[in-house]
């Protein structure tokens, strides 16, 4: 039979401190990584057909041929915006940046739709 320590020891404190530090480190990592960034996927549709589907991690500028002409979109820091569009009202350009899953930029005259889809998928909670 091995005796059991009943008093709190320094090793216990070390254990608790270690777990706390690990939890805080993991939390901080998550927070810093998700700051402003949402790992979504950009879906570009012209006239209802998806012509492009790309991640937002790489900064770039693209041109999309729409119904009336070219639409220029820019991806930067995990966000997307329409820079230029061959449409009369420029509502799509004025929409500005989008970054979250579910957000979209619609250019009706040029029939270009940019939508951010959630990546990953699957259930968001586990049944116990």
């Amino acid at each position: 039979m091995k005796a059991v320590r009943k008093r709190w020891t320094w090793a216990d404190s070390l254990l608790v401190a270690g777990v706390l530090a690990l939890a805080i480190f993991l939390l901080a990592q998550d927070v810093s990584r998700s700051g402003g960034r949402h790992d979504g996927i950009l879906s570009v549709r012209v006239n209802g057909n998806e012509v492009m589907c790309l991640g937002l991690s790489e900064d770039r500028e693209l041109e999309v041929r729409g119904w009336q002409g070219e639409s220029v979109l820019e991806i930067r820091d995990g966000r997307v915006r329409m820079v230029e569009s061959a449409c009369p009202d420029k509502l799509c350009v004025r929409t500005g940046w989008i970054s979250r899953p579910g957000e979209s930029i619609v250019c009706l005259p040029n029939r270009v739709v940019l939508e951010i889809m959630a990546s990953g998928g699957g259930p968001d909670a586990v049944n116990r």
Partner: protein
Amino acid sequence: MPSTDKKFSRDGTLADQAVRQPYPRLDARARKVGAMGMLVALGLLLQIVEGSLPPVIPLPGAKLGLANLATLVALIYLGPAEAVGVNFLRCLLGGLLRGSFVGLLISISAGTAATLAMVALHYLPLFSLVGMSIAGAVVHNAVQLAVALWLVGFPGLRHYLPFLLLVALPTGTLIGWVALRVSHFIPAGAGVKGGAFG
């Protein structure tokens, strides 16, 4: 000096033999099986009681771990193999009672890992009973999440780990403290080798 009817037990503790060995003819193995069965039943009972209580913290997987009391007591009074056995049987029976195969798988793997962690800390003469319990809770929650991650295959689940780790600290402390209180009621040498508990 005439000697009294008190004797020293094998552990060197002074104890009344009549109290320490209520069934002297029962051999050590039978005593051990009896004690293990009792602890399995006790753990199962605690698990059911805990399951019927409203959750203290509304996080799935974050539970008090009352049933770990039975494992802890088995570890410190019977031994490491007995603790693993008690925990395994308790998880198996509890899982069958709940009727969820995934739950059973998670429960057995996390419970076994937690028990092994507590065994390791028990034989590392640095940690107290409360520290052992905390380690068990932390390992249980981490392994539980890992198995869930593996079964579900949704990597976003790992962001849940820090919360489960943080929850394990108070619950592990509480269960360790209760185990400490319980241990005051079990005589010091009440192990397998012919104690009232064995």
